[in-house]
């Protein structure tokens, strides 16, 4: 037994993953190619953004970051919403079907009639859902690192890597939530739905908290979007606390999944 389930599950989704990679590369490239237009437009984006409601502005532009700089531009265009949302969608789709799909497809009997421990099955399925996210993030990094300078997009590549890592971990948080709910209930849709709802709720929380007095500080405590740095991540980096939380949450959720799955009656 050498991670056969992991390899099988990855092999099953390679077409979809290849498509996602191509899409993400083209998207990053498009944004990179558009940067010279922004930089040379002469528009005072700062004034433009200042007219927006504070909550809305902070959600898309890091405080004190200029939009027309490489760091501000990439932060707003890629890190504020787009890349996290895409990785989240890929991760949640994969993990919500990983175990529940074997059940609804009726193949779980065949799979678990082999001497494969349930805990191992869970871990391999989780890895199969999360590992591709690293690949997708690496593709974005490569596009910016290799082609970015040609468009005047020069950023600290180490910082970019950390920022992307944080986004991968952010998506992993919700992917693991989807795995937990779908595997504990046997229902794929429920897992995906709850993970999506949690993502939207914590995203909104992160966007609103700074401008709503009663929510002050709640985002730092409860929103993975806050931990991962948001739009100002390339300027400010990711805090160690944030990284720690982003790693701890998926591990706790994974442990809960193993526990819940070990105890369950699998549906025939």
């Amino acid at each position: 037994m050498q991670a056969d389930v992991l390899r099988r599950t990855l092999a099953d989704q390679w077409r979809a993953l290849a498509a996602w990679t191509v899409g993400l590369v083209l998207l990053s490239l498009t944004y990179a190619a558009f940067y010279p237009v922004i930089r040379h437009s002469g528009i005072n984006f700062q004034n433009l953004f200042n007219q927006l409601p504070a909550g809305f502005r902070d959600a898309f532009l890091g405080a004190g970051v200029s939009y027309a700089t490489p760091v501000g531009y990439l932060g707003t265009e890629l890190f504020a919403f787009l890349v996290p949302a895409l990785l989240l969608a890929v991760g949640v789709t994969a993990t919500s079907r990983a175990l529940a799909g074997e059940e609804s497809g009726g193949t779980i009997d065949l799979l678990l009639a082999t001497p494969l421990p349930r805990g191992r099955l869970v871990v391999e399925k989780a890895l199969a859902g999360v590992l591709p996210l690293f690949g997708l993030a690496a593709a974005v990094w490569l596009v910016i690192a290799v082609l970015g300078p040609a468009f005047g997009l020069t950023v600290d590549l180490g910082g970019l890597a950390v920022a992307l890592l944080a986004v991968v971990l952010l998506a992993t948080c919700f992917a693991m939530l989807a795995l937990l709910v779908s595997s504990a209930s046997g229902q794929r849709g429920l897992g995906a739905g709850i993970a999506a709802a949690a993502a939207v709720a914590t995203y909104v929380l992160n966007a609103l908290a700074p401008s709503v007095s009663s929510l002050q500080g709640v985002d730092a405590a409860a929103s993975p979007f806050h931990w991962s740095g948001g739009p100002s991540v390339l300027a400010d980096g990711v805090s160690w606390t944030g990284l720690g939380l982003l790693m701890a949450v998926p591990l706790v959720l994974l442990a809960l999944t193993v526990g819940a799955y070990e105890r369950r009656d699998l549906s025939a």
Partner: protein
Amino acid sequence: MAAAPALAIEARGLTKDYGRIRALDELGLSVRVGEIFGYLGSNGAGKTTTIRCLLDLIRPTSGSARVLGLDSHLESIPVRRRTGYLPGDLRLYPHMSARHLLDYLGRLRGHIPRERIAALAERLDSDLDQRCGAMSHGQRQKVGLIQAFMHEPDLLILDEPTATLDPLMQDAVHQLVREAREHGATVFLSSHDLTEVARVCDRAGILRMGRLVAVEDVTALAEEGRHIVTFEFGEPVDAAEFQGLPGVASVRTTGRTLTVDVSGDVDRVVKIAASHTVRNVRSTEVELDEVFRDYYKAGADAG
């Protein structure tokens, strides 16, 4: 090394509730090592529930089971390593070819020689290069059988193995089952087909509403033979003369006709009948499935 257990499957007080529905009701079950045990019951009797408990896919509400001498839950990994299982509702990965699927399941079991898979495929006339999704029910069933037999397990748990196969393939499966027993394996075969159980099994248990209502020695039953003997006498004869004779289960009289249900030797019955004027005698052998049906009805009445 612990001594080899005498029982391949041993369930005690196995109970499984689904909400308010009791699927298994304090089931006791003993399957001896090296026998082909038929597990008879209609749909919903609890056959699949029992099997899925034995394989730790579901957990009993109470009670426990030992499989190959090991606890079915706590020692599920070694149990599954030594068991081959054909699910009742077999589903395969539609996008995979049979060869890929068997390769995958084989690797999860360690190493399975390719030749063994090829040999089984040849015997069952199975095309391994076909995509599982494009297969007919019978073809899929063959792939299921190959994966159950390919690691030469000590115990085979087959849930309705021949339900979707044509008679020729049914024979091939029965042959595989017998060969497995000859090599020392135990076979636990669930079925609702009485004829199949009568033909291949050594012993059979009848399950009804989650309870085992009877366990019978199939070969002994077959050897014993059971007959319905009908006499036409010259005059009405008292049924009491026949009641209580060895092997006599029931006696019925209508006018001068007397019908006796007798197992084994009919000697005593015939000799008593001979003391009257016998106008005619008819004897019909009771098929094994009728024997089972009777047990089943008795269980239903009791339940």
